[in-house]
Every structure is written in structure tokens, then in C-alpha cells.
């Protein structure tokens, strides 16, 4: 099921469900990555400064959280290391997504110039081609920062980081990457209809990152519902986070919290369907 959806969006329309095709796509993608890598390494200083800049900006954001905790002590019963784990999880997932899925940001430009037509002619899925257009290595700045905060938070807690917990953590990250990718795909799909790039969904991406850095309990019901059921960010941050931080009440089964990141995968699958629908309704702007 999963693989079929994936192929439908990324593997062209012919639907041949064979391993060889996936492998071939992977090889092709690796080549795209290596092109991106080489072109970005042409400007080494610029790359370094951009990564460093991103590291600083995100570090400053965490600095803000740190100072708030210093002033107030706790946030509705949550201590700083616990919030640091939430922060680290969501920022790491977002950084990975930004590195690999920022290509979708270039879609409005493609549509505006009529260049999307060329993608349609090539014998590979459009989603794959758009995604592979850009791999942003400078996102390593945010990644390092997020991972550092995550590690710092983990070290600051008295929790035993068992194999099970680390697995759940990895699974949560996968769910997060899927969810954010889904959001990028949706944002790009909008571009088919608006031509102009629309930044409205930044509220859900950047805003979502900001929101899921804190426990969901501090938000009002409307926000909680939005980020649990519409854009299931809570499922790839807060809910598995509760399990990781031993905050699940004994009467409730852990399983639900461990399954939550699945919502991110489902979200991506749905987004890819919407993308396909968008491609079908694409009208060229070229002459």
C-alpha cells in the first residue's frame, strides 16, 4: 500500500511495482544529491556562513526558551530538559525535511515560467523531480543545533534511555519528517492554482515547529485540535514525547502513544494524493 502510493507520486504513472524501479530512483536521487552537493561546495565560505547563521538563529531561539525557564522555573509542570527533548525532536525532523524537500518551494517559480511542462515530459514522477531539484546542505546548521539540544535534554533527565525508547525516538523523527514533507507538498500543490507562491502555509510549517516545541497543554483548545487532528503535529512530537518522558499515566496503554507518529506517514500519503490531483489540474502558463 505504502509503496504503491509512493510509486504513484514519485515513480511515474505506469505503476510497475517492482523493486528495480525503486532502486533506480534511489540511484537517480543520489546523483541529484551529488550535483547539489558539488554546486553548493563551489561557494564554500558562503555555505559555511549560511550554516553558521542558521545555527546561530536557531540557537538564539532556544536561548529564549532557556531564559524563560531561568526566570520562571517551570512551564505547567514541565522542566527545561523535558521541553528540550520536545524542541530537539521537532527541530531535528524539520531540519532533515528542509534539507531534502525544499525543492518543493521552487514549484511556484517553475509554474510561473512554464518550466513545469518540461518535467511532465520526462519519464519520471513529477513529485520526485521537483523534490530532487534542490538539496539544501546548509540546513545542517539547524540539524546540529536541534540534535545538540535533544542530546542535552536527554542527558539532563534521569530517564534510562533504553533501546525501546531510542527506537520510539527514531520512529518519531520519521513521522515528523513525513509530516513536514507532507506540508511542503501541500504548499507546493497550492502553487498550481495560485501561480504566485503563497506563504500562508508557513504558519503551519514554521508556526508548527514553534508550537510543538512546547507541551500541547499550554495551548487553548482550538490550537490543540488544529495541531492534533488537522495537522497532526502533536502525534510526531508531544504524544510520543509523553511516552519518552515517562509522562503517560499508568492506566493508559503506551501503545497508542508509540503508534501516534503513524499519523505523519498517513498525512504524507494523503498529501501525495492531493499533489497528483493538482498535477492533473495543472494548466501551463507558457506560451
Amino acid at each position, binding site marked *: 500500500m505504502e509503496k504503491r502510493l509512493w510509486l504513484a507520486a514519485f515513480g511515474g504513472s505506469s505503476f510497475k511495482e517492482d523493486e528495480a524501479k525503486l532502486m533506480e530512483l534511489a540511484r537517480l536521487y543520489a546523483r541529484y544529491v551529488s550535483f547539489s552537493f558539488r554546486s553548493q561546495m563551489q561557494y564554500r565560505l558562503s555555505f559555511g556562513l549560511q550554516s553558521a547563521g542558521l545555527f546561530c*538563529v536557531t540557537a538564539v*531561539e532556544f536561548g529564549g526558551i532557556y531564559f524563560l525557564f531561568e526566570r*520562571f*522555573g517551570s512551564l*505547567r509542570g514541565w522542566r527545561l530538559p523535558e521541553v528540550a527533548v520536545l524542541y530537539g525532536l521537532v527541530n531535528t525532523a524539520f531540519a532533515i525535511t528542509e534539507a531534502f524537500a525544499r525543492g518543493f518551494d521552487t514549484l511556484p517559480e517553475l509554474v510561473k515560467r512554464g518550466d513545469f511542462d518540461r518535467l511532465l515530459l520526462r519519464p519520471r514522477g513529477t513529485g520526485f523531480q521537483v523534490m530532487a531539484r534542490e538539496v539544501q546542505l546548509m540546513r545542517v546548521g539547524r540539524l546540529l543545533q536541534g540534535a545538540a539540544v535533544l542530546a542535552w535534554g536527554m542527558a539532563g533527565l534521569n530517564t534510562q534511555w533504553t533501546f525501546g525508547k531510542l527506537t520510539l525516538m527514531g520512529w518519531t523523527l520519521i513521522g515528523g519528517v513525513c509530516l513536514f514533507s507532507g506540508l511542503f507538498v501541500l504548499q507546493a500543490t497550492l502553487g498550481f492554482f495560485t501561480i504566485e507562491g*503563497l506563504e*500562508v502555509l508557513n*504558519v503551519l510549517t514554521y508556526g508548527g515547529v514553534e508550537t510543538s516545541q512546547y507541551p500541547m497543554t499550554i*495551548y487553548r483548545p482550538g490550537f490543540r485540535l488544529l495541531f492534533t487532528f488537522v495537522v497532526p503535529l502533536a502525534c510526531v512530537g508531544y504524544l510520543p514525547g509523553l511516552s519518552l518522558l515517562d509522562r503517560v499515566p499508568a492506566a493508559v496503554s503506551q501503545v497508542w502513544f508509540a503508534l501516534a507518529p503513524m499519523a505523519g506517514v498517513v498525512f504524507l500519503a494523503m498529501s501525495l494524493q492531493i499533489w497528483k490531483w493538482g498535477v492533473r489540474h495543472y494548466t501551463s502558463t507558457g506560451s
Partner: protein
Amino acid sequence: MLLQYRVAALAGFVTQIFWGLVRMMVVEGFYSASSASPLITLEQAVTYIWLGQGFFRMIPWTADQEIVQKVRDGSVAYDLVRPMDLYWAWYCRALAMLSAPTLMRAAPLLTIAWSFFGLQKPASLAHFLAWLPSMGLGLLLSAAIVTTVSLSLFWTISGEGVSKLLPAAVWMFSGMVVPLPFLPDRLRMILELLPSSSIIDTPFRIYMGQYTPEQFMPHILLQAFWTLALVLLGKAALARGVRRLVVQGG
């Protein structure tokens, strides 16, 4: 020009409201169970946050991109032969580019925040009257910072370094991420003397009544001092920069 892109303006507006709400709920969360005695009340903190959202666009985020381009491709030479004072021409550009979006966004956003989301009125008429010039000085200072950063391009050409690191510093120290009254006391006292706090922090704290009328004058004078200092620094930098400038291209 900004009105031409109505949807984009609306989107920016919605985004700003969203961030304001998140920040507000975070601060509410911190206040709810705290025994600490912060410098300002929750109502004041919420007011500070909404003012920050309203005047978000007057923060000196980056160098003037058009000047960046001009220095890089050498067309700055045309600006140099024009019979005008280059510093003030660029300064006015920066000022216009900061104030137009600020004015457009601040009024509707603050109205909505005041109606629905707990933005307080100014502490008193006196506070309001002091807030206006203080806000204006903040804007003048911000334009001076943008111009100075743009001028630094004469030395670095690419401008990558400054324009990438400036936002991080400004973001933190202006009070946009965390209202400065929340910072540890010693750090806060240092920051209150630096130009970054003169941009928005000083006017906001006058507005919400954290500064008493006797304190207005020293704070506003400090703002004026930094504005003047940065303008003079910028003019000096321009004079030196022009002498060593090598225009590329032929």
C-alpha cells in the same frame, strides 16, 4: 506598491497574528504556575508581545538588498556621480523601506489585538505622548543600522557574513524573541544600554508603563544618542569606503 499584493499582505498579517497567539499562550503558561516574581505583569507581557508583532517589520533584519546588488555589480558608480549626499539617499531608502510596511501592518494588527487578544491601552496619556517620539526614534535608529550594515559591503562585497549573522543578534537582543524584562538581570542591564534595546524595547516599556515619567528622558536621550552615533559611524564608513572602493566591471 505593497497594496498591490493584497493576498500576500493578508497572509503576512495572519502569520503575525498566529505567532502572537502562540507567544502569548507560552507566556501565559509560564505565568500560570510560577512563584517567581517577574519584572512585569502578565498583562504587560502580553502587551509587549502584541506590540512586537505589530512593529515586527521595523526590526533591521538585513542589509538593503538593492545596495548589495549595486555594490556587487558595480552600478554603485552611478550613485556616486549623482549630485547628492549618498549617505542620506541610502538612509532615506532604508527609512522608507522600514516605515511603509510597519505603518501598514501595525494599525490593523494592533486594533485586532486590542479588541480580542488582550493588548492593553497605553499606561497613561503621558506614557502615550512619550511613546510616540520614542517609537519614531526607534525607527530612525533602525534605518541607521540598516544603512551601516549595507555600507559594510564596501569591505566584504558578498555581504553574506553580516547579513546572516545580524538577524541572530538583533532577534535576541531587541526583545523580539523574549521580552527583555524576562532576561537575567545582569544581562538585561547590559542590553538596556546597547543600541539593540533602543529599537523597540524602550518604546514598548514606555507604552506599557514600566518606565515612570521621570525615567522617560534618560531613555529617550539614550535612543537619540545611539541614533546619532550610528549615523555618524555610517557617514564615516561611507567616506572611508568610497576612497578604497574598487568598482568592478568595465
